[in-house]
């Protein structure tokens, strides 16, 4: 399917120079949200997470450049890992309402995300598209089920970060196991969510992505303060 080109709104200036611009598409930036929907997320946590996801989409759409560059994917993990939203530009996503139940197949969820990233990068390359380094955001309130290979995943994530395959951030929701989450990625360390401030977190994520999608390779990024949603200052 041919991608849809979103035209820029016209402006007028009085410089005396004038010129039309061509319909160039933007380079892509993929953000994969890997979200815990285990039974422990039931109640206020999942409700606030659903609200936050919808606000995240709205915030991205408010930033014209980011909305043209950012592709969002959503992977959930409960009893199994599922890709609920394939990589899609924010204005074309129908954000699902998540329901919490089952176990915490966290490792399967992250592995699904890493595979999705590789698949999407392959597609970017095959279709001649430039892309920014993809970003994985893990959100969990618990610890992985006992059958989950955390140390194996830790190596995979470490290797993916070192080889610049993805940026990796993790967010701990009330009751999460910090030590276990830090075992998966210690740098940057997992950040605990203050209460259920998902809306504030996603607003921060949207603003951060706005900065990332306007950056150049190797830029030292000054991301917004995390004070609004975490108990720890970055």
């Amino acid at each position: 399917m041919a991608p849809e080109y979103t035209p820029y709104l016209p402006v007028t200036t009085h410089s005396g120079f004038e010129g039309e611009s061509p319909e160039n598409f933007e380079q892509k930036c993929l953000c994969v949200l890997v979200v815990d929907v285990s039974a422990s997320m039931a109640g206020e946590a999942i409700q606030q997470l659903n609200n936050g996801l919808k606000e995240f989409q709205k915030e991205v759409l408010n930033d014209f450049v980011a909305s043209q560059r950012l592709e969002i994917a959503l992977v959930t993990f409960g009893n199994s890992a599922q890709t609920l939203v394939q990589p899609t530009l924010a204005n074309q996503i129908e954000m699902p309402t998540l329901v919490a139940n089952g176990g915490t197949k966290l490792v399967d969820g992250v592995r699904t995300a890493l595979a999705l990233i590789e698949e999407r990068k392959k597609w970017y390359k095959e279709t001649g598209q430039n892309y920014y380094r993809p970003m994985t955001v893990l959100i969990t309130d618990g610890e992985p089920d006992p059958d989950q290979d955390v140390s194996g995943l830790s190596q995979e994530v470490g290797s993916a970060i070192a080889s610049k395959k993805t940026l990796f951030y993790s967010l701990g929701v009330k009751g999460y196991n910090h030590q276990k989450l830090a075992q998966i990625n210690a740098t940057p360390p997992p950040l605990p969510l203050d209460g259920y401030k998902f809306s504030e977190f996603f607003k921060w994520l949207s603003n951060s992505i706005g900065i990332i999608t306007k950056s150049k390779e190797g830029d030292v990024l000054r991301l917004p303060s995390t004070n609004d949603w975490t108990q720890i200052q970055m």
Partner: protein
Amino acid sequence: MLVGEHWMYAYASVIGNSHTLDSKPCQDHCRVEHYEGFSIAVVCDGAGSCVHSDIGSKATTELAVYRFQEAISDLAWDGEKERPTLEGWKEVAKKTLLDVRNDLEEFASHEGLEFKSLSCTVIVAIRLMDALLLTHIGDGRAGYCNANDEWFPLMTPFRGKEANETVFITSDIWDAGVLDTYLESVLIQEEIKAFCLLTDGCEKASFECNLFDSEKGTFYDPNRPYKEFFHKNVTTNLPAFWSLGMTQMEINQRWAEFLTSGNARLKMEPDDKTMVLAVRKANQTISLDGATGTA
């Protein structure tokens, strides 16, 4: 401006939206200088990751103007005694850019700055009487318009695997075995009406560089200057300002305003933007033997 200069210019560097929000300085820089028989235009784009790249792009611009003025003055490429060849120009460009790189290293040492903190791309164009020379390291774009009003690219930007990855004058590219991968030099000897040099902050507004081929289902970069962006500025606007007697500074101020918000794409661009536009004056034609005539 030299009396008898047959070209008019508009050039400016303006800060991008994201740098304004971040309170960063403009990391682009450009300069145009005229000499007897030739002019030099330089455009540099400082690396966002490097703390002093704004200083680096300014210093590189100044050093490139100085070094290329020296190099071209020493040659007799005026179209009367001798004409440049592509091979000859490639050698001059390599040697002179290496001189610029070494000068920049000396500057860094003198100022107590880390050399790589000054990283920037560089594009240099030399307008001779009957030829246009271009050399560059890194990304950005350049193009020219021939006598038939057709626009063509003058260079291919160097791109890495990820978006906006490139190389800089400070990069480890100077080994003779790999230098040709990173340093491109071009010689144009057909009659030209206009040319442009720009940093990548201007490319989406003025070049076709990421189009979709619906038959193949792929995106591609034709690297094609967009005529609708340049045409009126080349044929009407810049000549009008010139004939009204505006100073170069007044023209550049208007050009800066245009690059800042002249159309919606320029206005939304987060990156710093620099463009040099050079237009041959309408009543001047230069034949390929270098003689000046009146149309």
